[in-house]
């Protein structure tokens, strides 16, 4: 891990007249084979940060700072060259997989398009590669999935297809923006397991955007806590969640409910009530 794969320096994003900066001087590194979580509540700027790495910010947004991938600043790349970076270097999965899958195209069509364009594979090779990736994300019958349309799959299956599609291009890093927020807990557990598996097997770096500190605790290696467009505190998961230095992180941890904590609070209350 001598040099990071992705390096973000002094990233700021402003809208309109520029008085209000939604993201302020954000810097972080992401190496291959690690999961970095950006955690924060709504409006913390975590999603804008991830979108800026993909250069997918809304047109009204103005961005300053450096975003380096393997030492090359992509913040200044012309759109045409950025298209090659997207997919091949950085993959992205979103909260709601239905909106990022085209409803009228088969899964095969959507998964092979990038492979044929970016990697110069033939249709047959691309299909085989897509099938392998689907198997990797836990589909027992990848060929059947390839023939299906998005609406024929459940929410969890669609999210797995999105991950497979992103991975097919073997990107150095994967950006996962609230990848499990729209999913049931049991499905969430599967998808998180999958991300961890992919990190160790493919050696991808994963930038995990989430509001759920429990997800961070189980999944991430390092974490950056965001609020009001700034990174307040960053470090390994054990450091930050185990011994938070910033007051906001402490408040975030305090307001996070776990099943055990809930039960304990209840027992305390009812104990007081009956005595």
């Amino acid at each position, binding site marked *: 891990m001598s040099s990071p794969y992705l390096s973000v320096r002094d990233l700021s994003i402003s809208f309109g007249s520029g008085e209000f900066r939604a993201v302020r001087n954000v810097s972080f590194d992401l190496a291959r084979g690690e999961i970095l979580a950006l955690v924060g509540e709504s409006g913390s700027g975590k999603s804008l940060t991830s979108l800026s790495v993909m250069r997918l910010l809304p047109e009204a947004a103005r961005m300053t700072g450096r975003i380096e991938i393997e030492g090359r600043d992509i913040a200044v790349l012309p759109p045409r060259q950025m298209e090659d970076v997207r997919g091949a270097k950085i993959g992205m999965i979103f909260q709601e997989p239905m909106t990022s899958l085209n409803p009228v195209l088969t899964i095969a069509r959507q998964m092979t398009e990038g492979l044929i364009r970016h990697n110069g594979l033939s249709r047959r090779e691309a299909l085989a590669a897509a099938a392998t990736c689907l198997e990797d994300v*836990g589909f027992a019958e990848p060929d059947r999935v390839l023939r299906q349309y998005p609406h024929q799959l459940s929410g969890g299956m669609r999210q797995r297809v999105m991950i497979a599609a992103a991975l097919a291009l073997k990107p150095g890093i994967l950006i996962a923006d609230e990848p499990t927020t729209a999913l*049931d807990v049991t499905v969430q557990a599967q998808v998180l397991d999958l991300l961890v*598996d*992919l990190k160790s097997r493919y050696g991808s770096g994963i930038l995990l955007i989430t509001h759920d500190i429990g997800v961070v605790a189980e*999944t991430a290696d390092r974490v950056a806590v965001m609020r009001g467009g700034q990174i307040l505190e960053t470090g390994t998961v054990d450091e930050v969640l185990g011994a938070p230095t910033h007051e906001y992180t402490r408040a975030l941890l305090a*307001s996070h409910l776990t*099943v055990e904590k809930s*039960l304990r609070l209840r027992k305390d209350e009812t104990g007081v009530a009956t005595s």
Partner: protein
Amino acid sequence: MTSTAILEVRDIRKTFTASGRTVHALNGVSLSLEKGETLGIIGESGSGKSTLGRIAVGLDTATSGSLLVEGERLDVLSPSLRREKLRKCQMIFQDPYSSLNPRLTVGRQIGEGLFASGVSDWREIRGTVADLLERVGLKREFAERYPHEFSGGQRQRIAIARALAPGPEIVVADEPVSALDVSIQAQILDLLAEIGRESLLSYLFISHDMAVVARLCDRIAVMHRGRVVESGPVAAVIENPQHPYTRNLLDAVPRFGRRRAGGKPTPVELPRHEDGDAFVAVSEGHLVLQAGGLRAAKTV
């Protein structure tokens, strides 16, 4: 069965037909809610928990089975008496944005419930509305404002005030905090608990979030594919889960001090339940649905 139950559903079934396919949303659910109690309904999408909540307040009707409010079956009451009974059942919705009318002032929306329950003097209504706003932790003068001027958490407080206006005894809360930031969630949960205690409300609290349910509920019922598979006092069910689905659900909740190992999803074997399946008592009040087995017991 019991005389203290303020709300009871007996063998509720609900089937939807959409484009030729029949979906069984509820396959015979029986539950009772005691006065002053908070009963949590926990389940994932497709479990039927929201449909059950809608039936409990009369927004949906069951295909078969009956709904009892204060021990009286609603299906045999006259329409006006039924309306009267149903006014005791109010609802708090999940989405704080679509659940408030964008074109009416906050005070008007809350006041409509008072007007409908027979208060015809709007000056009197305005006073009560201001009291209600204060009670949910908002300023009295917010009554004159429109919903878009408020944050998600404030909107949910307004929705709670609106649900309280007709003077309900039963409140069905369908995922009332899942659209909110965690710091706001805690405040709303505390508010619900406080109001419940003060007004001796009975809550049917529908959620997918085990931690939230554990915080607020006295008893919980775990739903899976339109059936209750396990129910009982909240600590008993969470600390000693018996049904494979309950265990699966609890295990999936993110936890501190545990690391995801990775690996492909392993399918969990869940029992297929049929209509004849019966509940077995694990401890006092803690029941678990047993597959197949006790068919003999049913014939008694």
